[in-house]
């Protein structure tokens, strides 16, 4: 399809792929980026929150023309039972800073813009092209890719696999495995459109201020999962995701969960009267540190979601994707500058640089959390939210019961549900996994 040979081929135009292609092109390498969607972003789905710092490292003046929705001044965590929520609510005027730290974005629009920067930097970006296979030589070295275009084989020194959580190429070439059902969450999302003023009034915002609500509890029916509500300029992104393994064992349906989340008395008023304009679904890598596959080999590296680089505890994914894409590109550039070949031995530099970054350090910190949350999902996502909600109601409702009696009732309900051993055990396990 393209006769010439490239320094690097980047498969995918999400956060990781765009970061890699941009970095490589900025450093003067000959880059081909392949994307199966009609345009960059047309196949991508995210909540979505953008962390400014990671993008600033790639495009320092991105605030000038990037399609940003709202900068976040507020974060709410909700622990929900079927009729109530107990909330932690953090809002600070500090977030109304000149260079805000976090924004809500709409991925399809953002990725289109990001892609325009990649093109400006000189990369060749080919959309509507599905890569079907990696091309390997007799020694198993990756030397290029095969696409679904006519005569669709194209060669390069190195292939950057930024193909997403459900990437086919790496798994088909046995470079990594298909994610296990307990290492991925399925999230479904709707985009609810409302007039700007309505969103601002309902979420207590002014101007471009934004807010995020993250919710856990009985909304996931005892499965490991969370709901989210993000305020954009003229729409609200609303969704819920749970581990695929839990969907398998419970037989719950994702759209059933979404519907119940939307009709919860704490959620319904926020989206009342909205017009839904899109329904999407996506897998989220949730396996953490222990699920990270081999990151490099002969002529290839893997970045972003395809490498399971997602911090599920802090809901950070796209920034890890961007950072891993950038670091992979920097490693490739270093190797190229030394005129060394793209062997596994040389590409190990990517892993070394990634290990030294916050990406792997953070994932290592929480390496035991995914398993704990999964094994204990009934307790963390059903029992405790119900207990806490009941305790709160008992605390605030005034009905002539002496306070000592109220405290005893609350304590008894906890001990009855989980026993002293269970309570201490859970607290200990949680603390240990968090450390």
């Amino acid at each position, binding site marked *: 399809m393209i006769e010439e040979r490239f320094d690097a081929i980047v498969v995918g135009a999400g956060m990781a792929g765009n970061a890699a292609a941009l970095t490589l092109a900025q450093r003067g390498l000959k880059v081909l980026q392949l994307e199966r969607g009609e345009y960059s972003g047309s*196949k991508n789905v995210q909540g979505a929150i953008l962390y400014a710092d990671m993008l600033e490292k790639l495009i320092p003046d991105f605030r000038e023309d990037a399609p940003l929705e709202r900068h976040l001044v507020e974060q709410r965590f909700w622990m929900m039972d079927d009729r109530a929520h107990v909330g932690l609510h953090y809002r600070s005027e500090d977030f109304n800073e000149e260079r805000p730290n976090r924004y809500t974005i709409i991925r399809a629009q953002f990725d289109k813009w990001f892609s325009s920067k990649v093109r400006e930097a000189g990369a060749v970006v080919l959309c509507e092209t599905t890569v079907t296979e990696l091309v390997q030589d007799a020694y198993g070295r990756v030397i290029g890719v095969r696409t679904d275009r006519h005569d669709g084989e194209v060669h390069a020194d190195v292939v950057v696999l930024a193909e997403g959580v459900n990437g086919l190429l790496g798994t088909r070439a046995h470079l990594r495995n298909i994610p296990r059902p307990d290492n991925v969450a399925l999230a479904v999302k709707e985009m609810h459109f409302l007039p700007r003023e309505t969103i601002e009034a309902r979420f207590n915002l002014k101007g471009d201020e934004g807010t995020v609500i993250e919710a856990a509890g009985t909304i996931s029916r005892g499965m490991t999962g969370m709901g989210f509500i993000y305020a954009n300029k003229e729409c609200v992104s609303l969704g819920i995701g749970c581990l*695929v393994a839990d969907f398998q064992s419970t037989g719950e349906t994702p*759209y059933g969960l979404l519907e119940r989340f939307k009709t919860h008395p704490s959620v319904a008023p926020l989206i009342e009267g909205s017009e839904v*304009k899109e329904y999407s679904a996506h*897998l989220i890598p949730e396996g953490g540190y222990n699920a990270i596959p081999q990151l490099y080999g002969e002529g290839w590296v893997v970045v972003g979601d395809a490498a399971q680089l997602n911090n599920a505890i802090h809901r950070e994914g796209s920034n890890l994707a961007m950072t891993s894409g950038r670091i992979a590109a920097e490693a490739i550039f270093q190797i190229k500058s030394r005129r060394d070949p793209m062997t596994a031995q040389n590409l190990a530099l990517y892993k070394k640089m990634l290990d030294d970054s916050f990406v792997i350090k953070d994932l290592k910190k929480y390496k035991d959390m995914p398993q704990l949350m999964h094994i204990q999902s009934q307790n963390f996502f059903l029992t405790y939210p119900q207990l806490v909600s009941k305790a709160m109601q008992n605390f605030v409702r005034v009905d002539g019961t002496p306070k000592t009696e109220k405290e005893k009732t609350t304590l008894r309900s906890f001990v009855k549900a989980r026993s002293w051993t269970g309570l201490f055990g859970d607290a200990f396990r949680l603390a240990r996994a968090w450390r």
Partner: protein
Amino acid sequence: MTTEPSVRVEDKLFYNRYLVDAGRAHIKVRPHTAPTPALLTLLKVCPARCYELNDKGQVEVTVDGCVECGTCRVIGEPGGDIEWSYPRGGYGVLFKFG
């Protein structure tokens, strides 16, 4: 299991834009007489409800509304219950917001 609220997934899919590659389904179900547990799971877990039982009790897939999340691949591909690919370049779901 809990009671299912009445949700019409078809209505949700109407919000989306698709470019259907007629005659080239990107997902195929392995021929079977009785469905495996994995195939039965797909009836419920697929967020676009692409999987349905036919009148012979076999699981069938219609990919027109597929949102390309890959959940069925994670469940069905390791055991060989389904064959999974991405649609040809440019085809399939086209997210405006994503």
